[in-house]
C-alpha cells in the first residue's frame, strides 16, 4: 500500500519534455526488492523512466510515423497501469506504472506490488493501485488548481512546495492524505477540548457565523440524430456541492434532496466520504437496471459532518423522459452550395429564461465559406469564415412559440481550405448547443432551504441554488451518417 517512486513531468506540444519533480522512496524500494525476489526490477534513472514512459504513452519520437516499440498493435496500453520495458543490465518489466496526464503535466507513480510477483497478480488485488490513483489525482488538483488551468508561475511555485507537502501527505511512500488546496488552513486555535476526536480530514475549526451553502448543478448531454432508425440519446447527471461554515469539532448537518411527485428516481448515487450513514434504499436505483416504477423516489437524506473546504456532497444520474431542447438539422448538397435547415424546440417543461443559449454549427473538410445567405427566426448569427463556424446566439429567451428556425444556403467558395476533421466528412455534420438555465433542474430534484438541518447552537444562514448546464449536446445532420 505504498509507492516506490513518484514523478511529475511536463510535456508541451512541440516543446521539450522535462522532469519537474521526482521522489524515490528507498524503504519501499527495499520492500519491493524483498517481495519480488529474483524477479525484482530496479527503477532506472529518471531520464530512462521518462523515455520509457513517453514510448508507452505513444508520445516518443513524434516525427517518426511508425516505431514498433511504440506502436505495436499487440501492446494495448493497459492503462491506468502501464508496463515499462526496461532494457540493459537491469532488464525487465516495471509494472504497474500509473500515469495520469492533464494539460501539460504527466504525473506518475509506481505502486508497490505486495503480492507474489509471479504470476503477475491482477491489478484489482493491489490496494496500492487505487491509493496511487487517489494520490496522483490529489497532486494534480493541487498543482493545476480546481479549474485545471495551469499558469506556469503558479505551477512552478506549487512544484517548489512539493517537498514540504509530501512531508505531510506521503513522507515515506505510504500516502496518508492528498494535499490541501490553498493555504494550509489553520484557524487552529487551541486544541479542541473534550473527548471528541477531531477528524483527520479537518484541518481546523470554524469560528463565527454559521453559513451553509448548497448548490445543485445538473448537466445534460445529448446525441440527437433525427432519424427513425436511430434512437436519440440524452442523459442527465447532477452534483450537489456544499460549503459549510459550522462550529464544532464534528457538527452534524443533513441535506435532503426531494423529487416532485412522479419524478423518476435518482440513480447511481455517489457520496463524499464525510457522509456518515446511508440508507440502503438510496443506493438501489441504477442506470443499468430496468426501471420498474416501484423504486424508491426520495426524499434522499444525506447526514454528514462537513470538512472546512467546499466539497461535492453527492452526485446522481437521472433518466428524464424528454430532452430540454429538441433539434432537427438538415443539410442538402446543391451545386457547391449547402442548403441548411434547422429547427430547435424548447420543451414546455423547461423554464424559458436562459443565462445564455447558443448553437454552434461547424463545417469541416470543405473550402472556406463564401456567400452565407441564412435567415434566423430569432436571435443573432455570427459568421466566422476563417473557422467555417456559425454561432447562433439565441439570447435569454425563446419566442412564445418556443421554436426557432434557421433556413438558407451557404456556398463554400473561399480561397483556402477550411478546417478538417476525420469524423465529419461529406454530410456528417453537427450542431453543438451551449446553454445554462438558472434555478431549475430537469429531474425536478431540489434542495429545500428548510430541509437543511444543522445540529448546532447558533441558527445558521442557509443558501441553496440550482442550475441546468449543457455539455456535449449534439444534434446531427439527419441526411448524413452520424458516427
Amino acid at each position, binding site marked *: *500500500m505504498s509507492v516506490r517512486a513518484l514523478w511529475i513531468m511536463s510535456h508541451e506540444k512541440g516543446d521539450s519534455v522535462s522532469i519537474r519533480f521526482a521522489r524515490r522512496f528507498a524503504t519501499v524500494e527495499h520492500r519491493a526488492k524483498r517481495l519480488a525476489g529474483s524477479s525484482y526490477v530496479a527503477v532506472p534513472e529518471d531520464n530512462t523512466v521518462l523515455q520509457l514512459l513517453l514510448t508507452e504513452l505513444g508520445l516518443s519520437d513524434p516525427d517518426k510515423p511508425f516505431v514498433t516499440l511504440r506502436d505495436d*498493435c499487440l501492446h494495448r496500453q493497459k492503462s491506468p497501469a502501464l508496463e515499462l520495458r526496461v532494457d540493459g543490465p537491469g532488464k525487465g518489466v516495471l509494472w504497474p506504472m500509473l500515469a495520469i496526464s492533464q494539460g501539460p503535466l504527466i504525473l506518475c507513480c509506481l505502486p508497490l506490488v505486495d503480492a507474489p510477483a509471479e*504470476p503477475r497478480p491482477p491489478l484489482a488485488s493491489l*490496494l496500492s493501485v487505487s491509493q496511487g490513483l487517489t494520490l496522483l489525482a490529489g497532486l494534480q488538483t493541487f498543482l493545476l488548481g480546481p479549474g485545471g488551468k495551469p499558469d506556469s508561475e503558479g505551477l512552478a511555485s506549487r512544484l517548489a512546495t512539493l*517537498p514540504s507537502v509530501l512531508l505531510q501527505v506521503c513522507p515515506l511512500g505510504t500516502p496518508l492524505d*492528498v494535499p490541501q488546496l490553498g493555504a494550509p488552513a489553520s484557524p487552529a486555535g487551541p486544541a479542541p477540548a473534550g473527548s471528541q476526536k477531531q477528524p483527520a480530514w479537518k484541518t481546523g475549526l470554524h469560528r463565527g457565523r454559521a453559513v451553509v451553502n448548497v448548490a445543485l448543478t445538473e448537466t445534460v448531454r445529448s446525441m440527437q440524430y433525427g432519424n427513425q432508425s436511430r434512437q436519440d440519446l440524452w442523459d442527465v447527471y447532477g452534483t450537489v456541492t456544499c460549503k459549510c461554515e459550522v462550529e464544532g469539532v464534528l457538527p452534524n448537518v443533513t441535506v435532503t434532496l426531494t423529487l416532485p411527485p412522479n419524478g423518476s428516481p435518482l440513480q447511481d448515487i455517489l457520496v463524499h466520504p464525510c457522509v456518515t450513514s446511508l440508507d440502503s434504499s438510496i*443506493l438501489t436505483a441504477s442506470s*443499468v437496471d430496468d426501471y420498474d416504477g416501484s423504486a424508491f423516489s426520495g426524499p434522499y437524506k444525506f447526514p454528514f459532518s462537513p470538512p472546512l473546504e467546499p466539497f461535492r456532497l453527492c452526485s446522481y444520474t437521472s433518466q428524464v423522459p424528454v430532452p430540454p431542447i429538441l433539434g432537427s438539422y438538415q443539410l442538402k448538397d446543391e451545386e457547391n452550395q449547402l442548403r441548411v435547415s434547422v429547427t430547435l424546440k424548447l420543451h414546455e417543461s423547461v423554464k424559458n429564461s436562459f443565462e445564455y443559449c447558443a448553437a454552434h454549427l461547424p463545417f469541416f473538410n470543405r473550402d472556406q465559406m463564401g456567400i452565407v445567405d441564412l435567415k434566423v427566426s430569432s436571435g443573432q448569427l455570427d459568421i466566422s469564415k476563417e473557422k467555417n463556424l456559425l454561432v447562433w446566439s439565441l439570447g435569454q429567451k425563446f419566442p412564445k412559440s418556443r421554436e426557432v428556425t434557421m433556413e438558407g444556403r451557404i456556398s463554400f467558395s473561399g480561397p483556402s481550405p477550411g478546417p478538417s476533421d476525420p469524423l465529419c466528412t461529406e454530410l456528417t455534420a453537427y450542431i453543438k448547443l451551449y446553454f445554462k438555465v438558472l434555478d431549475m433542474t430537469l429531474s425536478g430534484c431540489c434542495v429545500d432551504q428548510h430541509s437543511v438541518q444543522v445540529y448546532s447552537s447558533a441558527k445558521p444562514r442557509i443558501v441553496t441554488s440550482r442550475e441546468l448546464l449543457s455539455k456535449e449536446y449534439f444534434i446531427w445532420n439527419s441526411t448524413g451518417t452520424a458516427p
Partner: protein
Amino acid sequence: MMAVSWADRISVLRHSPTRFLSGTTAECFLAELLRELRDDRASYSVKVLLVSPLCEYPTLLCPSDSVGEETALELMSVFAQCPPKSVQFRCHLLLALTSVLVCTSCVSSHSRVSQDFLELLLQIAQDSSDLQGDAAIRSFRATACDCLRELEACSPGLLFQRLEVLGGLRQQETSQLHQSFAGLHTLVLRNAVYQLTQEAGAGAEHLKALLGGNTSLSWDAEQDSDLMKNKDSAALSSLILGPMGTVPTLQTGPDCKELRSVLSSLLEESYLLTPLCQAALLHRLTEVVAMVPGVPPAVFRAQLLRLLGTSEVCLLHTTLLMKCAFTDSLFSAEDEAFILKRLVVLSQHPLLSTPEKLFYMACILHFPENRPISCGDGDETPPVLLTPRLASALVPTVFNDSATMLARLNLLSLVYLEEEGEGEEGRGLAYLYEHLTSLLDIVENGGSREIDVTFFRAAFLFLFYFCHVEHYSNSLMEKLCKLYLCHTRLAPRLINLADQTQDKLTESSWAVRLLRALQGVITEAPLAQLTLQDLSWHLKMLARMAEEGEITQHRTLSFLSMVIMPSSSSLCVSGDWRLGNSLLRVCRRLLVHPSLDSLLIPLADILQHLTCRYGDTDIQDHARLYYTLLTTLSRDKLAGVLAQASSEGGRQVKKRLLSCIMAESEGLTGVLTIHQTEKAIFRLIEAHFEPREETQSDTGSDRNQNEMETCPGEANAALEAYRAQFDDPSFASEITLNYRLAHIQANDSCFDQLFSIHLHFSLTDDHYEELSDISVPCLFRARPSPEVRVRLKPRRPYPTTLRASAIFTTQDGLSWLTVLPDIHVAFQHTFRPLPAPPAWGRGDKLSLFEGLWDEISSESEKEPADCATSLFCCQLKEAALIALVEKHFLPYLLSDLSDREEFKVIFFLAPQSHMLLRIRSEEDAVHFNITTDNWQLLPHISSYLVTVTSSQENTLH
C-alpha cells in the same frame, strides 16, 4: 554560493546517480554531506536539502551495513544538537535515519543504533507536552509515527511488544494525530496476529495476552522472535490474494472478546480518517479478521453501505478486497449483483476520471465472485453475472479516448465470446464489427497517428477473439486492402498486424490470406498513378510477402519487372539508392523462396536488368552478385550461402549475414549496433602464480648466478647500488598478473566462438594507475583458454578490485558488450621478488637485506615515520614452518632454505615499498619479525600472515 552548488550537485545526484558518481565517490560525498550537516553556519533550508540523498539513495551512499551504522550515528548526533524549533529539518532527519537504517539492514540485525532510534521515535510519539495544540509539534510527532509505521512495515514484528502501548496512545489522542496512531496500531496488530499464526500451538490465550500487553507472560524466551528473522517475504505480502490465496489462520474459538473490542473501536473511528488512511486501515483489519476465524466478518457490516456508496476509488476498492476475502460470509448474492452493477456504472460515470474508470473495468474482469468458476489464474474473465445486456452500458464508441475504447472493446469481446451460440451473440458482435469499421473510416479519412495506432490495436483485438468468425474476418481483410491503397503509409502497421496475428493466432491463416490479398491489390493497381513514395511502401510489403512460402510470387515478379522497365517508368534512370535497395531486398527474399525453381527466369531477368540499367553502381554490383549466385549455384548451395534454409511455419526466419547487409536495412542496424549480453559470458581465472617466470625486462633473472661472487663490500654500498636503479622512474614499477580467459556457462551455443575480444578494465579506487586495454584474438569453447597478462602499475600496493568489460564479435557478425565478473587483486598478488641488479649473487642480496633492515629499524624510531617494525607470532611445528616457507615464500627467500635458524624473506612492493621478514622458531612460538618502510601495509601483511599460517596449521594437524 555554497547553497547553490549543493542544490546543483544534489539535483544531479537525484536525476542520474551514475553520472554523479563518475565525478566523485560515494564515500567522499557522504563525508562532505555529514560535515556540512554538522556545520553550524549552514542554514536549515540547505540542511533539509542535504538529507534528501540519504532518504532517496541510502544504499548508494552507504554501501555496507557498517557505513550505514556510522552514518546513522552521525545523524543521531546531528539530531541531538538540532534546536527543537527547526521542525522541518528534524522531520527530514527522522526520514533519513529511517531510510538509512532500514536499507542497510541495521534494523533487521537489531544494531544498537537502530534500537536507540526506535526508542527516540517512541519517545517523540508519546511526548504529550504539546497541550497547546501546536501544529508544528503535532506534525513532528506524526512524522515520528510514520517512521515507526515504516519500520514495522519493513521489519514485521518489530513493535510486537508495544502493541498495547500503541493502542492506548491511539485511544487517548483527540487531535488529528489519532490517525497516525490508528495506522501504526493496525499494522502492528496485523503483524502480531500474523506472527501468532506462524507459531505452533498459539491460540486464544496468546491473543488475549498480546492485546493485554502481557507479552512477558508467554514470550519471555522469545524476546526476539519477530518475523524479521523469517527470511522470506511472506509477512510483507498482502494476505488477500483472490480465490487461490490461502490465509494462515489462528484458531481461537469463538471467544475473542478483546480482539473484537479493539476491532470495533478502530472501525467506529475509521470515519474520522482520510480516505487513504481509511482504506489502508480497512485492508489491514480485513487481513486480521481473515486470519482469526473466531471473529465473524460481520464486524464490517456497519461500514458497508457507507463504503459502497462512496465516490472514493480506494474506499470502494477495499470493499472489493473484503468481498474477495470473505465472499458469501459477508456478501449475499444480491450484494454481489449490486456491487457488479455498481462497477459497471462507475466504469462509465461522467464524473469520474479516465484512469479511475479504467481501473473499475479492470476490477470487473477480476471480479471477486462468491462462487468463482475458474480458478483465478490471473486471466481476465468476466463474471458470470455480467450479461451482454448489463455490459452493453460499456459499448465502445468513436468518442472514447483510445485507452477507454480498447478496454471496452476487450471487455465486450470477452462477454460476447462467453455468450457465443446464444441468441444475443449476433447483435453484439455485429455492433463491435460496425464500431471497428467506423474507426477504419476515420483512419481512411485521414486521422491522426494516434487514431491509426488505436485502429490497428482494435483490429488486432477483434481478430484475437473473433478471427474464427469468417464473415467478419474476411470482410475486415477486404477493407484493409482498400485502406492500404488509399494510404500506403500504413504499410508498416499492416505488416505489424500480419506479424502479430501470425504469432499469436497460430492456427489461423488469416495473416497469410491478408498478405496474399494485399499482394493482389498492389500488383493489380494501375501503375500510372504510382508515386515513388507509394512504390517504396509497396516494395516493403512485397518483401514481407516474399517471406511466405505459401504465397506464390509470380505476381510480385511481374510487378517488379513492370516497374523497372523503361517503358513504364523512369525508375531505373533515376537510380535512387534507397529504392534500388528495396528492390533488391524483395529479390533477395525471392532467392530463398521455396518456389524458386519456377521463378528462376523472370527473377534472373530482373536482376540482369538491374545490373545493366540501374542508375546506381552500388545497386548494380549487388544485383550482379545476386544474379551470379542465382545462375551459378544449385538451389541447396544458394540456400546455404544465404543461410536461410530454415523456415518456421512458412515464414522464413531472419538471419544476419554479411551478404545481406546492404539489402536489409534492419539487418544493417543489427550488425552496426553493439548488443549487450544479459549475463556474463566469460571471465578471467587466476592462472598459476609463478613469480619466477615473470618477465622482468629491466632486471632479468639471477637464479643461476654463482653464490660466491664478489661482495660489493658492506651493506651501505649494496644499498646505494640498489637505490640507484630507482632513478629510472619506470624501474620495477609494474606487477604482472596472469589470467586465463574462459567461458562461464556452456548453454548458449551462439557464444561458443568469439572473435576480436577487446578487454577494458576500470579501477574501483585510486591506488593504481589506469590500465590499458587488452586484445585477445579469439576464444573458442572447444580450445584451451588463452592467457591474459594484466599489467598493474601501483601507486599504493593495496588490495583492489578491478571491473572488466569486453567487446567482442560472434560468428554471425554481431558485436556484443559484456561485463565480466569483478577481478579481486589480493595483497599477496602485489608481492615481487627483490629487484636486485642482475649481476648480484645471494651474498649481495643478503647484505642489502641487512642494510635495509638496519636503516628501517632506526628510521622507525623517529616520529613521524613511514617506517615501522612489528612482530607476528603463531604456533607452528618446524616441519609446518618449512612447508609454509616453501609454499608461500620461496621466491622471496634470501637466506638458504637449509638454514633453519632464521629465514630472511623480502617482499618488494611496487613502486618503492619493502617488507622484510625474519622468521625464527623461538621456544614458545614462531616469531615473524617484520620491518617495513611503509607502515600502512602492516594491517594487510598481518591479515595475510594469519591466513597463510592458519591454513598451514589446518593442513598439518
